[in-house]
């Protein structure tokens, strides 16, 4: 492989919630998706529904209240998406929404620069919604797919979110942080247990991320695949990864031309 670690990571490696989760799940998948941006060879799912629901929740809260049925109907109609599935997901959010919050914002972009020379990295996260109430910064991650964890703390992605959110507590007048996953798909009964990290938890997360970046630099370009059928089976590179436990034929449409 021709890559040097510097061409792969740049001077300051970036860490995102999904990238870090991918790294923890399978280093090979992280290399392909996040560092080399190889187009996926195997379709997984379309993100369109999730993006749509996220956009509708933002529009609903930007211009009114989610428990105002008339307003919700109007927003959905304005966007031409007043279908039963979307409406059902909005309804599931309404019962979880902390409407009494002093402030709220959707789709918040945050970054945090970790600088302990020679180790540096830039963590970035896009938070679906932030509510400030009762001295708490209540961050929400809307989920429209399957549930993968019983506790939010167990998701590496959540730990990156906590890392970038933590420095903002004083600025918004909060003393506590809570991360909650809102599962909006009707087939998911309960949300995972929210994560409310204390100072020790946050220090441990910073150490964990720093160790991961050290591990990246030390990898010398070797990113072995996990080779686990359960993980590989839903991987977007399962057919072309040399370490795949579920190899097959790539699904790029162009390969159908000769058949």
């Amino acid at each position, binding site marked *: *492989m*021709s*890559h040097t670690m*510097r*061409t*792969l*990571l*740049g*001077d*300051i*490696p*970036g860490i*995102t919630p999904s990238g870090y989760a991918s790294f923890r799940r399978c280093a090979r998948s992280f*290399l*392909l998706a996040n*560092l*080399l*941006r*190889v*187009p*996926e*060879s195997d*379709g997984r799912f379309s993100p369109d529904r999730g993006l749509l629901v996220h956009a509708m929740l933002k529009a609903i809260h930007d211009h009114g209240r989610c428990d105002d049925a008339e307003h919700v109907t109007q927003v959905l109609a304005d966007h031409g998406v007043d279908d039963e599935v979307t409406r059902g997901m909005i309804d599931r959010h309404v019962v979880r929404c902390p409407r009494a919050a002093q402030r709220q914002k959707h789709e918040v*972009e*945050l*970054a*945090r*620069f970790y*600088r302990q020379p020679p180790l540096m990295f*830039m963590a*970035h996260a*896009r938070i679906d919604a932030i509510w400030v109430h009762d001295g708490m910064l209540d961050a929400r991650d809307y989920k429209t797919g399957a549930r993968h964890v019983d506790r939010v703390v167990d998701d590496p992605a959540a730990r990156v979110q906590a890392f970038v959110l933590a*420095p903002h507590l004083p600025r918004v007048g909060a003393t506590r942080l809570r991360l909650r996953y809102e599962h909006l798909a009707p087939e998911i009964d309960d949300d995972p247990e929210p994560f409310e990290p204390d100072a020790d938890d946050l220090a441990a997360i910073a150490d964990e991320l720093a160790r991961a970046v050290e591990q990246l630099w030390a990898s010398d370009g070797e990113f072995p695949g996990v080779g686990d059928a359960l993980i590989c089976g839903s991987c977007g*590179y399962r057919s*072309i*990864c*040399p370490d795949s436990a579920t190899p097959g034929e*790539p699904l*790029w*449409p*162009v*390969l*159908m*031309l*000769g058949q």
Partner: protein
Amino acid sequence: MNDAARDTQEDAAPDAQEDTAPDAQEEWPRVTLRHLRADETNCSRRLAFEMHARSDTSKNRSARAAFELEQRVEADATNAHVELRCAGPADFRTPRELTAEQQAAYDAAAIGYLALFPDAVRHDPELEVWETASAEHRVRWSGRVGIPCRDASDQAHLRRLLLGSRAPQLDRAWLFFAALRTEGWAEEVVVDVGSLLVADRLDPIMITPAVRDDARRWSAAQVARARDRVAHPMPRMGRDCLGCPCVAGCKAHDG
């Protein structure tokens, strides 16, 4: 642009003729398509740095491997047309130095190129520079816009190769940027956009003088907005922090 910024710029502007000389052009800001797309959600400190940084300015280097596959496919497609001819399978040799997965994607993209672009063309290196100076805006349009080539009748073409998993769509900002970059190269340019892995290609789009007029109007507004923002650059924390070339000294990360 605010009044103070406009005053500063006009004060600094020497004689117009002198200002358009090649040496002076090197001092003009570099404006990429990303800069033209930038809005208030982007960081104006980074924007200012990128537009005005000289090539010898110290900066944080970003990761480049992410562009490797795309650049390799485009480079080999370009080399396939050093003379007027169709590309063939022999023009795309699997790059063994890349990962197995990149090789698989490369091979699939090569099939896509041969299927979507069967016509004979000749690469035209005249546009094979990274920048086009715009005396109108006193900026340098910077960045590649595809493979510049000419067909048997000397008609100019621009081939844009996409490696995504979706069908190609017309990107208006990109088309306008291509119109600006190709000004002076050819009056009319046929733009061919193909999504190689999806094996789908848009109907050809023509860059005409009328399209260039629209592009000039659009870019004038975008450049004015960019200049206004970089006159008083303010760091903005967010997605621009990833790969930022000027993290050092940024007040957004003082804490």
